[in-house]
């Protein structure tokens, strides 16, 4: 259980926010998030944001992931 995808808040309107996930827009419920703000990344599960994503960690990991994938593609993967 608990399929969730990272998404970015574009704008907030009360309990709801408009978010974008890889170019796809959606209105989601953000009432579980403390002070959601435009620019925040959140985890989206079944139409609700369930947690904020730590942006520093997120960027850091993305860098690592991309490196690992490039490594794999260069044939050094397992």
């Amino acid at each position, binding site marked *: 259980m608990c399929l969730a995808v990272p998404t970015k808040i574009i704008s907030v309107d009360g309990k709801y926010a408009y978010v974008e996930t890889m170019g796809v827009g959606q209105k989601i419920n953000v009432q579980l998030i403390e002070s959601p703000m435009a620019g925040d990344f959140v985890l989206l599960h*079944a139409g*609700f944001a369930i947690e904020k994503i730590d942006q520093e960690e997120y960027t850091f990991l993305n860098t690592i992931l991309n490196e690992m994938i490039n490594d794999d593609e260069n044939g050094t993967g397992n």
Partner: protein
Amino acid sequence: MMKMEQEIKKTVRIMEVCGTHTQAIAKSGIRYLLPNHVKLLSGPGCPVCVTHEGYIDGAIALLAHEDVILATFGDMLKVRGTNFSLSEIKRKDSVFTVYSPEDAVTLARKYPKKTVVFLAVGFETTAPIIGATIKNVFEYGPENLLFLTALKRMEPILRFILMDEESKIDGLICPGHVASVLGGEAFRFVTEEYNLPAVVCGFEAEDMKMGVYSLLDQIDGRCPISFLNLYPRCVRNQGNPLAKEYINEVYQTEDGYWRGIGKVSDSALVLKQKYQSLDARSRFSISEEMTLKPSVCQCREIILGRKAPYECIQFGLSCTPENPLGPCMISSEGACSAHYKYGRVIF
């Protein structure tokens, strides 16, 4: 993966307890990258697969009321009750697949003369979002929306598995998104109380790889046994306090019934007295027979690592992916289902 003796190793069993981890393992093809002696097991982590037959029977019974509409996540459609699944029994426009609990609210407003019952299933990831919906509906309506809950808690089932003396699990991948809500610390007991290597990890292929290797390091003694949060970008130590508040506001715990496993103390989340008016159980007289007849399904043994699928006498006979009896066959990546489709080993 670091240095290790290459000869014949003792089998290492690593369990994950989140359906999305199950999927991620399958989709990433990570098994192929692991040494042969490392087995990834799927525990009871798909809340739909472990939903008890009696609950499905109850939902089906609701359909006998002509004015009832069921709203459900798509996952529930093909899971069988004692005899039928919702997808087999539904009439046209009697069962709607929704993406979000809020879609059930929309549905109820669209059919004001009907009673819409939302099948509220999930672990603690889903519990707060359903809880928020319940609170919203309690305060603002619509009045024709009820909730039939089969929400489950992760901790009791983990303890149930870990307490088993014959348990053959060597490491645990904790459910990342339950941890997003409850906090990484919520799973520290696995290591502290049961002395089992455990990591909270994310769902990308690289997350999974990192999680498994980290556990192997501990299991093989290259690192000390310790509880690690490898998913800090989405998991704070204390989780999401607002989400936890919604859980506490709306639900109380109760004994839960797990398909193929049986009763597990305090493992269910049910509506508090205050929200009884929204509980489908109190509005309709649903008798979910918690089938005391001994379950024929051996999933418990399989999940606990005691038996192989083919040792279950139902396997391939009365239990197939098309007609599954237990969680291991229901989930398309469950041990029984995988064994049925691909035989023992393919690569």
